[in-house]
């Protein structure tokens, strides 16, 4: 039986239920599994056609008719950030050849986006990021830990003593930004990451009639004879990161109305001019947000004040003002004061393997949402240096924290901006030279083109927190097709059975679950104790997998 006509297809199209249409795929499989095969594409524009845009399930003939070349590879990972990297790393260590994986990405190396975001949010190269010593994206075992590596490199036991004393006698030990990126670069070379990388922007993922998926890539201009290339694969992994930033409504309104992008800035966008201006003349900064980025920006302002003897004043507005330990009972109480909620890392540590991970894994719907609410909320680590700087600031009268909701922001006479605030203490108008938005609000997942398409056409749906609902093994619910599967990890899946998704360790946990699921499906071998140990030795000696 050949390809049915379109009318027939329209009536009978059920994903994964038409083995008679699977001839091309079977043929491909009997050739060289894992190798890319460029099919001859008939005449066409090489771009998406209205038919392809509309149909949730595509046949090979439809793609070929559009003139889009098809590349065959068993697994593609979309994103190419740290989420893709740790997943590929795990699979490579489990024994999957590089030829069976392609990373579709518009960035040159996995930590590029992270590097940018950490730099603009005030973490210099030698500063330390908020991550645990054993959360190593370059090392699936978490051993040796970063602390052990830094201790070895610097021939100093100080790092180990620090880890031993945390968090009782010292702040949590955290790795240097440069250590994290350097070790990822090493691992990237070791597993042959660059050979798997295909540059381009992914436009969509659609189900293929009879099984598999099509992932449509738009390669960089001039690198491909056609505008689009289709990757036909049995498995797709999505690790597309944060869909984007969302600005606080009043700040968005101000920026749009007055076209002023100088006085109101987001901490995740370049805003060095704020610090430079404050070095040139005295000024006041309004800071908004209670997370780690607010802490970083605050430290930068305090550091500059001290280093350059600046008279900078800071007004810190918390919408949710935490004034003490909070939680429903003595067994679930988080520390806090002066507006901040304190926590070592993004989530309580046990979400990455302990009690809270086990607890959340069993919950669905409202119960899951309730536990997320309990352990969630904006928070920051209680670091000794930051505490001292804030104490000094309060004592010196140049740092003020307050509860408040900003109703609107307007330009001030003579320059600067005025924030109209309603708080516990009533109405207040705060004049400042700059407003730094550190709230880090994230846009809805539908702002991401690939995710929006997935929600609309491929059967994916939202979890209780509005992100993509995934199984415990990170398969996106509702998207199965034949014997293939579509997985997602990272921020996209926050709100699932595992809470710490948007962290190094969370990405590794997802990678492990995905690799184990692929092994269950017979696609790769499960990484057992013997191979794990032999591969660890290879990692230690920087030998290829």
């Amino acid at each position, binding site marked *: 039986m050949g390809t049915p006509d379109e009318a027939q297809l329209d009536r009978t199209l059920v994903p994964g239920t038409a083995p008679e249409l699977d001839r091309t795929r079977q043929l491909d499989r009997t050739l060289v599994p894992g190798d890319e095969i460029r099919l001859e594409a008939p005449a066409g524009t090489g771009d998406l056609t209205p038919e392809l845009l509309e149909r949730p399930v595509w046949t090979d003939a439809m793609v070929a008719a559009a003139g889009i070349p098809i590349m065959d590879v068993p697994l593609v990972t979309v994103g190419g950030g740290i989420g893709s990297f740790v997943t590929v790393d795990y699979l490579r260590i489990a024994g999957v050849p590089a030829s069976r994986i392609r990373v579709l990405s518009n960035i040159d190396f996995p930590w590029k986006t992270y590097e940018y975001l950490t730099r603009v949010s005030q973490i210099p190269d030698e500063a330390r990021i908020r991550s645990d010593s054993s959360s190593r994206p370059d090392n699936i075992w978490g051993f040796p830990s970063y602390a052990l590596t830094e201790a070895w490199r610097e021939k100093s036991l100080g790092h180990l003593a620090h880890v031993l004393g945390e968090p009782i006698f010292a702040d949590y030990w955290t790795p240097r930004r440069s250590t994290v990126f350097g070790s990822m670069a090493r691992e990237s070379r070791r597993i042959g990451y660059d050979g798997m990388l295909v540059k381009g922007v992914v436009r969509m993922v659609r189900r293929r009639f009879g099984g598999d998926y099509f992932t449509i890539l738009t390669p960089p201009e001039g690198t491909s004879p056609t505008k689009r290339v289709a990757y036909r694969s049995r498995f797709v992994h999505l690790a597309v990161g944060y869909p984007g930033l969302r600005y606080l409504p009043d700040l968005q309104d101000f920026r749009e109305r007055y076209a002023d992008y100088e006085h109101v800035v987001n901490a995740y966008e370049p805003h060095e001019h704020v610090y430079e201006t404050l070095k040139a003349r005295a000024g006041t900064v309004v800071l908004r947000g209670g997370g780690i980025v607010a802490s970083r920006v605050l430290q930068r302002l305090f550091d500059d004040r001290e280093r350059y003897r600046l008279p900078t004043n800071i007004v810190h507005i918390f919408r949710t003002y935490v004034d003490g330990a909070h939680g429903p009972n003595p067994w679930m109480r988080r520390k806090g004061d002066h507006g901040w909620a304190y926590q*070592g890392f993004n989530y309580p540590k046990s979400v990455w393997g302990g009690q809270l991970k086990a607890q959340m894994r069993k919950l669905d719907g409202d119960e899951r949402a309730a536990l997320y609410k309990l352990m969630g909320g904006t928070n920051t680590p209680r670091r000794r240096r930051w505490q001292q700087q804030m104490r000094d600031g309060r004592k010196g009268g140049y740092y003020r924290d307050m509860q408040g909701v900003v109703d609107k922001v307007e330009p001030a006479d003579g320059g600067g901006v005025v924030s109209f605030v309603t708080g516990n203490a009533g109405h207040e108008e705060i004049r400042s030279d700059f407003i730094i938005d550190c709230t880090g609000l994230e846009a809805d997942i539908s702002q991401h083109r690939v995710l929006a398409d997935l929600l609309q056409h491929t059967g994916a749906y939202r979890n209780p927190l509005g992100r993509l609902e995934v199984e415990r093994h990170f398969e996106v619910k509702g998207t199965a097709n034949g014997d293939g599967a579509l997985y997602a990890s990272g921020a996209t899946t926050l709100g699932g059975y595992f809470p710490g998704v948007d962290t190094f360790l969370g990405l590794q946990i997802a990678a492990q679950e995905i690799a184990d699921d692929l092994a269950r499906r017979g696609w790769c071998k499960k990484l057992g104790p013997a191979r794990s140990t032999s591969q660890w030795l290879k990692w230690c000696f920087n030998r290829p997998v």
Partner: protein
Amino acid sequence: MVPTLLGRIQTRIFLLATVGSALTALITPVLPIPGPLGPAYRTTFIILAAVLVLGIGWELVYHLLMQWRWEKDWPTLFGLVTAVPEGALVWLLLSAHAVPGLHATPPFGAFLADFAVVWIGVWLVANGPMRVPFLRWRFHGGRLA
């Protein structure tokens, strides 16, 4: 570590049975225990068994204490300093001849060296090398099965 109760118990049994046994076998000949080596081994392995059995009770206590921690974690240091109450309890029971199978109390120095070597060895393995062969262990709250 971020253990679950089951993970705590499984890890303790596994590590004492493997790392603990190996270290006990290695250190016993050099311990200042009077008499031939056979009875000395009997003494040290019974002590190891006592640490294991009592330890299951201790893990219940630790699990309860951990509930007051927001993070529901068990810092590395806790894993080391809990040697003090656990070691003290075993020594008290040894002194009171309350450990089944042992009628004579070993010299305190021998007990201390034996207990410390096993404890530190197990603690070191639990804080790193354990993850090499068992790479799912740390994500499963310390469960091995």
